């Protein structure tokens, strides 16, 4: 499991790569921690680009649940975008699609947060 990060305006796009199974969930949690520190009402928003995520276990989803709880507590914003078909189905079956917004694409996720047009790339505009 690898976590790529890219900043666009006040949005941090986090891209987990590969599989987040029971063994990798802890590494995912550790990699995510510094970005959660910055996510609050006046800070950065977190958008997970799931396009390179092949699999996420219940342990990995638990990490996303904790991240969601934490960001909500401090008035921050968290969403996911561009899940592969399998991961999208997993989000539906586990009801995690009711926990945070699931956008079809990263561009859709950025657009959903008003005032972030500057975060779109020319291709996404």
């Amino acid at each position, binding site marked *: 499991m690898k976590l790529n990060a890219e900043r666009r305006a006040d949005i941090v796009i986090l891209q987990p790569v590969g599989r987040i199974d029971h063994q990798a969930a802890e590494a995912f949690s550790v990699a995510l921690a510094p970005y959660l520190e910055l996510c609050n009402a006046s800070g950065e928003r977190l958008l997970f680009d799931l396009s390179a995520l092949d699999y996420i276990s219940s342990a990995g989803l638990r990490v996303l649940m904790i991240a969601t709880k934490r960001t909500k507590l401090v008035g921050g914003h968290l969403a996911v975008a561009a899940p592969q078909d399998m991961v999208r189905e997993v989000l539906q*079956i586990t009801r995690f699609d009711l926990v945070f917004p699931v956008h079809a694409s990263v561009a859709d996720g950025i657009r959903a947060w008003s005032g972030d047009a500057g975060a779109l790339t020319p291709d996404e505009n």
Partner: protein
Amino acid sequence: MNKVAAALHAANGRRFDNVEAARSYATTLPFAISGTFGGHSSCVELEITPPSAASHEYFLCDLGSGVRPFGSQVIARHGVHAPNTFHVFISHMHWDHIMGFPLFAPSYLPGNELRIYGCHRDLEAAFRRQHGSPSFPVEFDQLGASIKFFTLTPDTTHHIAGVNVTPILQLHAGDSYGYRFEYNDKIVVYSTDSEHKLNAPAATERFVDFLRDADLVIFDAMYSLADAVSVKEDWGHSSNVVGVELCQLAGAKHLVLFHHEPIFDDARIAAVEAESRRFETITRRVYRALEITAAYDGLEMEL
């Protein structure tokens, strides 16, 4: 009402000449319309050898309300004079897991023997407390059967009437215990009222080992995963998705979704069963195929 409406709609104008024809048609409808998953609380029988009218050794897990119809079947099979032995394994003493005992008719019959096993030291006290005033009109000591309690040690294999039984401590308020039963080459695991925290790979591995190569896993699948790790965290129950994952990692063959959420109707439980099967299919990858069945009152499976 919804089921009747769904059945009439599905019939789409068909005519039935008699009740038997209608009954035959009803068997073609989805289970959630033609039947019901039921509502009894936990009680599972493991039939080690086929019973006959002669005396028999029965194996049970928990004594929820489901034990009442079971007791009636036992008496219908043997009458009231054949002495039977009942080996009963108790996950924990929350009321829904022992509430059927006062209505278990064989416990009133002299000659029967009940051997009740568990890992809680106050097992007998819990049974005595629900018998007698003000909860029940019959005192525990008035029961006709011989009733004995045995304390088992977790993580230790006990040899009981030819069956190897291994309890494991589970996460639940007041503790609960799962049981792994091994007889000849068959393995059945009964694991209800058990939360899985998912925050420690070592704990996951421990439970995967407990389920290893099981032919059948009866698993607490009460909540959705999202509920189990959020609003219902620490409520002591698990989810269908965690059941599938643990069975996949353990190489288990058949998962039975058990201890359904009481607020779910039949349609919702059927949907959970279908979603669980879909989840297993899309995440199977290197794992063996896993059969999945949602438990219902009266379900029988042969291994």
